[in-house]
């Protein structure tokens, strides 16, 4: 049984909650980007103040130290997701860049006109647009797994969709609906059909124990800034045998072993995929973010988010009845701490603006998932998302602010 999170103590780790404001900060937008603990900020500052130099180049002491810290953070991050080897941990800017890497490197090497790639209708644009670009470039076919009315994947025709497909690329957790997809089962079915399995784990890795070996994917992408780490660093994990067959994505510094005027030899893994000076301080910061998350306990974080999300669904539906509609599954076992909702027919922008007046930060818009938003039959949603520093008091603040919102618009 996981220990409960001590939210009161955890909030003290985050300097942003110490800032004196007109109204206390009720931050419910961690699905867009989480706040940063003091330990991460300090580690990055300390690195810059004491031992910054470029990595993999200088032979002087601080350059050796910078390289050691960068590479040890890679190993740390690999352990965080139970990667068999740090050679399988590649750093990019974010999930969007990782998905472009996969499409342009694996895709161009393995797909021909008419080949099929299967996606789902709940994908973030990061897992749609790179494939649409490949469709324009190569003439591949895209197939989409649909959704049920409950906001879960409709798997009734999955075998048909996977038939002859070369890849199945899907999200582990929806950034709009909160839906948790059965990654292992989907990966097994895709593998049985001979497809490569690519997983967008941006909303998964920050919130629960991640074991890339148990999940069964071939490639899995996530980002640092949603898991207490800095912006500017994304991670792509891939099975070594697969990564070895993939050509480089971006060309330039650091990713080569040799360059002549008429050709080049790429570097070995993982540097083959890391062109140019990498985000050194960011990778170091992300390593410390892993420490912090493990100190809190990933199982405890998952339990905590279930508890707060369940409380939110109960409180808000009891208080507002039909005026409050959740998009996505209601069962917390089937969902993460992302709660998209409609309120009294108000436009999410107006809801978000009035909530801001109460210090409550929620996201409003299409959440970079326009096909999904169209599928829901709305123009946009308001979205509250919960993390380690949120608790039931934040939900109560949201409920009170929604009350004021209804009053303000005379509804």
């Amino acid at each position, binding site marked *: 049984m996981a220990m409960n999170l001590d939210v009161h103590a955890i909030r003290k780790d985050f300097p942003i909650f110490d800032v004196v404001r*007109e109204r206390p900060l009720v931050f419910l937008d961690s699905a867009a980007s989480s706040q940063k603990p003091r330990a991460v900020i300090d580690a990055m500052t300390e690195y810059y103040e004491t031992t910054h130099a470029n990595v993999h180049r200088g032979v002087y002491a601080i350059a050796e130290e910078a390289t050691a810290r960068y590479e040890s953070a890679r190993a740390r991050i690999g352990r965080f997701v139970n990667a068999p080897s740090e050679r399988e941990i590649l750093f990019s800017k974010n999930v969007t860049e990782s998905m472009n890497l996969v499409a342009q490197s694996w895709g161009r090497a393995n797909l021909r006109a008419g080949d099929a790639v299967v996606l789902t209708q709940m994908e973030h644009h990061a897992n749609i647009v790179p494939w649409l670009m490949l469709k324009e470039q190569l003439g591949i076919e895209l197939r989409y797994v649909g959704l049920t009315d409950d906001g879960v994947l409709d798997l009734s025709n999955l075998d048909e969709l996977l038939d002859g497909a070369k890849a199945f690329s899907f999200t582990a957790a929806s950034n709009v609906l909160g839906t948790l997809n059965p990654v292992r089962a989907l990966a097994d079915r895709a593998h049985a059909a001979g497809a490569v399995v690519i997983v967008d784990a941006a909303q998964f890795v920050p919130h629960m124990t991640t074991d890339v070996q148990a999940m069964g994917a071939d490639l899995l992408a996530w980002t640092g800034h949603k898991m207490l780490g800095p912006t500017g660093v994304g991670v792509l994990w891939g099975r070594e045998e697969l990564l070895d067959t993939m050509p480089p994505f971006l060309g330039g510094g650091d990713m080569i072993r040799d360059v002549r005027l008429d050709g080049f030899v790429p570097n070995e893994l993982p540097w083959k995929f890391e062109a140019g000076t990498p985000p050194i301080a960011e990778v170091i910061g992300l390593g410390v973010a892993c420490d912090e998350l493990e100190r809190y306990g990933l199982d405890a974080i998952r339990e905590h988010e279930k508890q707060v999300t369940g409380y939110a669904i109960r409180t808000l539906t009891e208080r507002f009845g039909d005026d409050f509609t959740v998009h996505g599954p209601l069962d917390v076992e089937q969902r993460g701490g992302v709660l998209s909702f409609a309120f009294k027919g*108000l*436009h*999410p*922008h*107006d809801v978000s*603006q*009035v909530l801001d*007046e109460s210090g409550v930060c929620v996201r*409003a*818009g*299409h959440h970079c998932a*326009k096909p999904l*938003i169209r599928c829901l039959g709305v*123009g*946009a949603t308001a979205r509250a998302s919960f993390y380690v520093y949120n608790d039931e008091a934040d939900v109560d603040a949201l409920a009170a602010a929604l009350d004021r919102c209804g009053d*303000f*618009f*005379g509804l």
Partner: protein
Amino acid sequence: MPGLEDLYREIILDHYRNPRNRGELETPPAHRVEGFNPLCGDEIVVYVDVEGGKITDIKIGGQGCSISQSSASMMSSAVKGKTVEEARALTRAFKALMTIHESRLDGGDGSGTDTPTPDPEVKLGDLEALQGVVKFPVRIKCATLSWNTLAQGLDEVATP
């Protein structure tokens, strides 16, 4: 810090709750044009009927937030019955209001900006209620969506 009352003035809320000129026009003779706000997903459809250089009728469709909807409603009331040239002048004046430099809000003179110069003869009337939107920069695109869409429509009518 600007308050909600700066943004949601009573007249704006009135146009939001009771939008004017909501609906569709037959095309042709009317011209139909769509506008999108890619950031928030707002979509607007403007139907505009131009005869003899005059906007004889206008209808608004689509969906969006209170600012984009009320701005579209106020726009439709303001340009209906006006000549195309008058509507263009009004559009320039409204966009100038929306691009007003922040220093002006704080009492500065706003010089040194690329703010378009509105015709001083053009009277915005009720539309000035939308001035508070400027204090909420991300919402400016909501307010200008219908105007940009109208401008596009009038251009298309002029050069079919």
